[in-house]
């Protein structure tokens, strides 16, 4: 039982990070109806930014976080202004192609700036040990959990209670109506990209603190992609729940099923996707996706 609870707890902490990355996807999906292929690359950039600020510049954690967020905001604004604004009114496919281009550019940039090799910064993030009975929260994850919970909470409040959040939700429904209400959609888009970048960068720092950074880290985007499908492509709450579920499934699969396999592992990476396929077959909108309202 302790083993199981332990797996659940570490699964939860990993799942929160997945949820954070998935929220980045959902926000872009809601406003542009396009999958942002580069979301995983924002995470990778975040990991490298964490390395630069924490290790190279020796900044404290809070300052590194703020600095990375500042970079992310600039990044989001530039991305929107330079690459996506010219595509307004173009088919969704054009936007998706652009995000593929962005992904490639970020990969090149990261190699150019930080070099291709693996950078580790374990132990730089403060470790806080928390024990509940015999279960311990993985110390390097605790700060990650806190940061992601706070970020997610801020985002939920932003969407629910602020004017900008309302404008973003309205834009996701009907761009033309929103413009006739006097809202500039370009501002809404810029805000969406900024949030996607910030969320990606924050999760990159958390993940980097646990497992180090390399260019291939962007593949975590693929897992978050699965989270998005599971949670329903336009539901932030769904992304959070699906993210946590996926993190736990991954850990449970690794803990119980891997030892049974002849090769001795590898199931952790496949098992969540199998579950997702099953869910999608029975609930194509995902668990919490909005169903089209159809009046008869």
């Amino acid at each position, binding site marked *: 039982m302790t083993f199981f609870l332990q797996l659940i707890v570490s699964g939860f902490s990993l799942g929160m990070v997945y949820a954070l990355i998935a929220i980045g996807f959902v926000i872009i999906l809601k406003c542009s109806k396009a999958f942002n292929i580069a979301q995983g690359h924002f995470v990778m950039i975040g990991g490298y930014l964490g390395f630069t600020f924490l290790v190279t510049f020796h900044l404290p954690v809070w300052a590194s976080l703020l600095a990375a967020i500042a970079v992310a905001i600039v990044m989001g604004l530039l991305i929107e202004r330079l690459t996506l604004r010219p595509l307004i*009114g173009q088919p969704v496919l054009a936007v998706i192609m652009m995000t593929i281009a962005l992904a490639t550019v970020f990969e090149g940039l990261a190699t150019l700036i930080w070099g291709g090799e693996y950078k580790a910064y374990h132990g730089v993030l403060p470790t806080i040990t928390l024990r509940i009975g015999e279960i311990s929260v993985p110390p390097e994850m605790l700060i990650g959990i806190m940061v992601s919970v706070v970020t997610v909470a801020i985002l939920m409040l932003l969407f629910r209670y602020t*004017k900008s959040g*309302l*404008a973003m*939700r*309205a834009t996701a*429904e*009907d*761009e*033309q*109506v*929103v*413009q*006739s*209400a*006097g*809202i*500039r*959609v370009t501002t809404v888009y810029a805000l969406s990209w900024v949030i996607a970048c910030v969320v990606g960068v924050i999760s990159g720092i958390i993940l980097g603190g646990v497992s180090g950074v390399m260019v291939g880290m962007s593949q975590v985007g693929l897992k978050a992609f699965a989270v998005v499908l599971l949670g329903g492509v336009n539901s932030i709450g769904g992304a959070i729940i699906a993210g946590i579920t996926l993190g736990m499934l991954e850990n449970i699969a690794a803990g119980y099923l891997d030892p049974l396999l002849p090769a001795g592992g590898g199931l952790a990476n496949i098992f969540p996707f199998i579950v997702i396929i099953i869910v999608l077959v029975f609930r194509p909108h995902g668990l919490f996706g*909005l169903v089209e*309202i159809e*009046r008869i």
Partner: protein
Amino acid sequence: MLQVNNIEVTYMNIIQVLRGVSLEVGDGKIVALLGANGAGKTSTLKAISGLLKTEEGEVTGGSINFDGKRIDRFSAADIAAMGISQVMEGRRVLGHLSVEENLLVFAHNRKDRKEVKNDMEMVFEYFPKVKALRRQMSGYLSGGEQQMLVIGRALMASPKLMLLDEPSLGLAPLLVQEIYEIIQRINAEQKKAILLVEQNAVAALGIADYGYVMENGRVVLSGPAGMLRDNEDIREFYMGLSAVGSQKSYREVKHYRRRKRWLA
């Protein structure tokens, strides 16, 4: 207040839909824009509100002035901020937002919270049915309720001029009457000028001060609403009444088909 001077509108640089449309809306007036499908009524409205630019249309000739400023180069959001609020055809509620949120979206540019709140109360006063549903998801409202919501929503922007595109579309006659009475009240009590696009000529001319009739992208006839109501061509082609004033008998349609005089 609003002058449309001889505008031409072209979609995708090739399809010309308006060929010189001029019209005027005075302060606090209700002006009706009538015409059959494809006459160019909606395009005229979209040219005024700037929404044309969001669907690859362009004003290629003429000019549009609002309160002394030329607005035909402005973006839809800027025009809306100047005080022109369009109620688009087909209701277009923001389905997954609540009724109240739908109203608040249109108050986005307004800073004074207290006034926004007052305006919301005003909207609820005009549409008590909407008030009862304020926390509901608007996509599940009935057609009449949605139409009321979108008219109320346009009011939330505190506009000087409201552009209404077919508020009677798909509604039962009794509801049409109800909505028209409210439009008339809004015009009288809130001093909002209204440009009303309609197929339902009887309803529109019933409350308008002035009317324009469009065909094939041109204004073919205009005049005070009373004069249009008495015009025999309008009665025949837009109100379905024969010259005598009785309901038209469709038995006679084949024998004699009146020719529109303005085509001569």
